[in-house]
């Protein structure tokens, strides 16, 4: 079960804002899922290697060759704000 503070942290990590009106229902909904998955605890998993890929095959490697061409004009057509060849975001101060 997560707390209100944890919810804030999750919102920051996931970059999602938490609308004050739906905050409570969001928290409840997340906790409902966490409750559902809590049955995980009952499973005996000692010494079981986690499975990240259903088929445990190995990675193929691609030859080091340039296969892509400049598609900036095409790709930038779907950009919300694109000027002078750059994607624009509100000014960031490092």
């Amino acid at each position, binding site marked *: 079960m*997560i707390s209100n503070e944890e919810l804030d*942290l*999750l919102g920051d990590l996931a*970059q999602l804002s938490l609308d004050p009106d739906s905050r409570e229902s*969001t928290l409840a909904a997340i906790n409902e899922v*966490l409750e559902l*998955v809590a049955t995980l605890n009952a499973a005996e998993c000692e010494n079981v290697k*986690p499975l990240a890929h259903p*088929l445990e095959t190995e990675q193929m490697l691609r030859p080091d060759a340039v296969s892509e061409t400049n598609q900036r004009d095409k790709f930038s057509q779907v950009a919300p704000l694109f000027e002078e060849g750059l994607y624009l*975001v509100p000014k960031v101060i490092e």
Partner: protein
Amino acid sequence: MNLNNATISELHQLLISKAISAKELTKHFLDRIAEHDNQINSFITVTPDIALEQAKAADRALASGKHTMLTGIPLAHKDIFCIDGIRTTAGSKILADFIAPYTSTCIDKLNNAGSITLGKTNMDEFAMGSSNESSFFGPVSNPWDNTKVPGGSSGGSAASLAASLCVASTGTDTGGSIRQPASMCGLTGLKPTYGRISRWGMIAFASSLDQAGSFTRTAEDAAILLEYMAGHDNKDSTSLNLSVPRYTAALSKPLAGVKIGLCSDYFKEGLDSEVENLVLEGIRELGRMGAEISEIELPHTKFSLSSYYVIAPAECSANLSRYDGVRYGYRCDNPVNLEDLYKRSRSEGFGTEVKKRIMVGTFALSAGYYDAYYRKAQQIRRLIKNDFISAFKQVDVIVGPTAPGTAFPLGAKTNDAVSMYLQDIYTIAASLAGVPAMSIPVGLSKGLPVGLQLIGNYLEEAKLLQVAHQFQQQTDWHKQQPQSFM
């Protein structure tokens, strides 16, 4: 011949015998979409210009004799597959205006085979849902009863075929998103082995679970489509580097000697009794046809739902970070700073279910909880895989219900997440293990279709298709169609 219930193989015969042109066939379905889709909302985007252009090319190919089984066959594609120049939304506001600048490998292969793209079908937002009600473009109705859901997440693809608005359709299955709507719409739905079909250009929900597949009227059509969709892709590291068998070649083998496993876990409380009876009757039919039926154990199946609802949200929480309003997609108005741009674009662009899953996944991966949630879920995933490996030492195919019930009323479960998630209780284990599975019609309960799930061993789609095809030779449940769309 009634074009509305014709299969790919039947239409192929009409096309090559010039009884009908690809253009006529395409127009027929475009007209049906124009006429009927307002009742079910199965398409997000219809692409008549592209379809007619492709039909023209198909007719040329047919005239010159350079055709495939799919030349001139009108298909509908789930709006999760990117197609160059066509709006691709994944059912989300965040991609509502996204014109894909490239084409997914899977659709590319179908296009190259000469098939026709009628349009892009509705779906749960980012494939998260079991009722097609989380779509930004509105819910889809079940053609069998338009007050009911079609299932999800590939609800539009299922409904469009059930309503005869296309000849077959593509879908994706992460936890049951092809099989469950196929069950609810009375269709043959196939989720192949993970990695059998390239994921390049298929918008990701949960990368280690997502797999493309199809909705068809028959197992034979599923075999035909798979021959074109499957295969290794240099652009997808997880696609299997194996040759594609001739799936259609194995269909006609009789069932004698085929070993079928029954798992008691798939017949526990929560399963509708009429559904149970129809499924059991279907299994008896398989027995009468010569299959040997025995009990098998899948002891960790009971943990599959919890494992899935950790792994899928965890992967989606990362997969959906790219929707940030910077390079494409929805961007909020007048962001005051970077954080505002991120938070508002994402919060306004994503729907409730998607946001919830991102939060759950973020939590499952966060410091202090990773081991108890994500790692544990991955351990269970191995146990589930091992269950299947042992079971397939005893049997060829595992059978059971696809979903716990038939199509439910629109809105009935939208406020009850757990009961919605339970829709996938029988389909999730195969997704976690990555084994192929399909759903075929096995009867009607109170006028609504019921599906029989068949689960096969890794890469044994041919065996699944053989069992399904043989069953469809003896039964005609797959030929049933909703009255109002015949």
